[in-house]
């Protein structure tokens, strides 16, 4: 990337960490980096890779206006990371979305019900192996 800004860069630097260090990293970011806002949680699916999913967090500091992106890799067999809900209240909805879309388990999250999808939806639609045309209507279509 070749973009430089005078103020804190609007493009966040990336921090790649092992999944086990997530809570410690987030605590340090919050306490020392003053990253007081969890902006976003999502995942990226790389089928064929041994650790299939990237889980991606974006943090923002309302004090220094700095941003940071934290990434970790998890395996398909055990796609679990710690929930950041004890540190950031905004994790409640965002982790629910990531859970239903990618099947990432957020350990310690008390309420992983579907949020944009519905009860009984089978599969995780944003995984690359979920067919884009697959439909799961709740009410049968009229013929």
């Amino acid at each position, binding site marked *: *990337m*070749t*973009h430089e*800004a005078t*103020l*804190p*860069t*609007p*493009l*966040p630097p*990336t921090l790649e960490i092992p999944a086990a260090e997530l809570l410690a990293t987030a605590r340090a970011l919050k306490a020392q980096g003053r990253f*007081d*806002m*969890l*902006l*976003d949680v*999502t995942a*990226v*699916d790389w089928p064929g890779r041994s650790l299939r999913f990237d889980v*991606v967090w*974006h943090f*923002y500091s*309302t004090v220094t*206006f700095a*941003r940071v*992106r934290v990434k970790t890799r998890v395996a398909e067999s055990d796609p679990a990371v710690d929930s950041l809900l004890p540190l*950031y*209240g*905004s994790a*409640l*909805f*965002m982790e629910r*979305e990531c859970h239903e*879309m990618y099947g990432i388990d957020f350990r310690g999250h008390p*309420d992983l*019900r*579907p*949020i*944009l*999808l*519905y*009860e*009984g939806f089978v599969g995780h*639609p*944003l995984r690359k192996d*979920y067919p*884009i045309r697959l439909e799961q209507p*709740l*009410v*049968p279509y*009229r*013929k």
Partner: protein
Amino acid sequence: MTARPALDALANPILPAFGPADVDGNVVVSIGPSHPATHGTIQMIAALDGERVKRVDVHCGYLHRGFEKECEAHTWHNLIPFVDRLNYCSPLINDFAYCEAVEKLMGVEMTPRTKYLRTLLSEYSRLCDHLTCIAASLMELGAMTPFLYLVMVRDYMYEHIAALTGARVTHSYGRIGGLARDLPAGWLTRLSEILTQYEEFVGRVHGLMDRNRIFIDRMRDVGVISTADAIDLGITGPILRSTGSPRDLRKDTPYLAYAELDFDVPVGIKGDNYDRYYVRMREMDESVYMIRQLMEMLPEGPINVDDRRCTFPEKTLVYTEIESLINHFKLVMDGPAVPAGEVYFAHEAPNGELGFYLVSDGSGTPYKVHVRSPSFVHMGGVARMLEGYQLADIIPTFGSVNMIGGECDR
């Protein structure tokens, strides 16, 4: 036509977080998903003690249409009409935020005229969005006259933007590396007229509402949220500013031409409904002030960058020379060549931080598109603003949060 299945054969699409047994026998009511007073398809399960809301469980997703999945099956250019449909009250800001994120990924620098035009149109869009939000919230409280005043001004703006973009609501006006077309003749003159009319009618709304006893009784000290809570819940935009925290990406990490503009960031006092109303009213004035500055600053020049990776060649050249024909064909069939990488870039949308997280694998189709939509995050925090107040307060609080279904549910 097949017979309708029995009611108990249909699965319940939601599982409420609590039932009457969990809330000491308080009455549990379901509000929505289609309710005349909630502008937006959303369901709230509320536990009531008399008129008092004890606990709320917000269910969104009724407008989910697989935006992010669909994006992975189209070229980067094809997404522009899709992002328009996120926040359909201010589609231009979605366009520009998305296009600028892709431009960052490609290392493309927009032309000066585009930079100022995008800033001007972003502020114009913010005006439309705030007008819609305030008009709808006031109407829900029974104020029909301000609704008509504001929606009338907004309609002048819609018609005016339609003269530029060709569509009233979903404009598809941004382009990667530029804009769809330049301003038509006389557009800025009409803009000045509309801004004058806006000032007249917003002045009337101030006169009707600001010290209106009924309005204040409904809005003051209702739906209060503190700065610390708002930051913890990821709340940005006018709701965060209404708590007294002057956080605005246009000032804090300026993008487009905001660093060169003179404007204030209005803040509230205690983060209640009245503050949210007033912050939005004041922000509109600042937007008008910015638009007037930008009309003076607007430079001449091209609107599209001269970069064959993303900009379409001139139509006359496409018809007369083979290189441009191939260029056009490749851009349509393969999409713009966006280098592999990832980017997160955010604009200050009318509701808060609208961020695009894009991952490219080097092809003309995005590998992943994720939208950090302010409405969705705000829905995670709205329970904090509803609990403890009365059932009737749900309407003004929900109105002042300005949930936009298209953006929340994607």
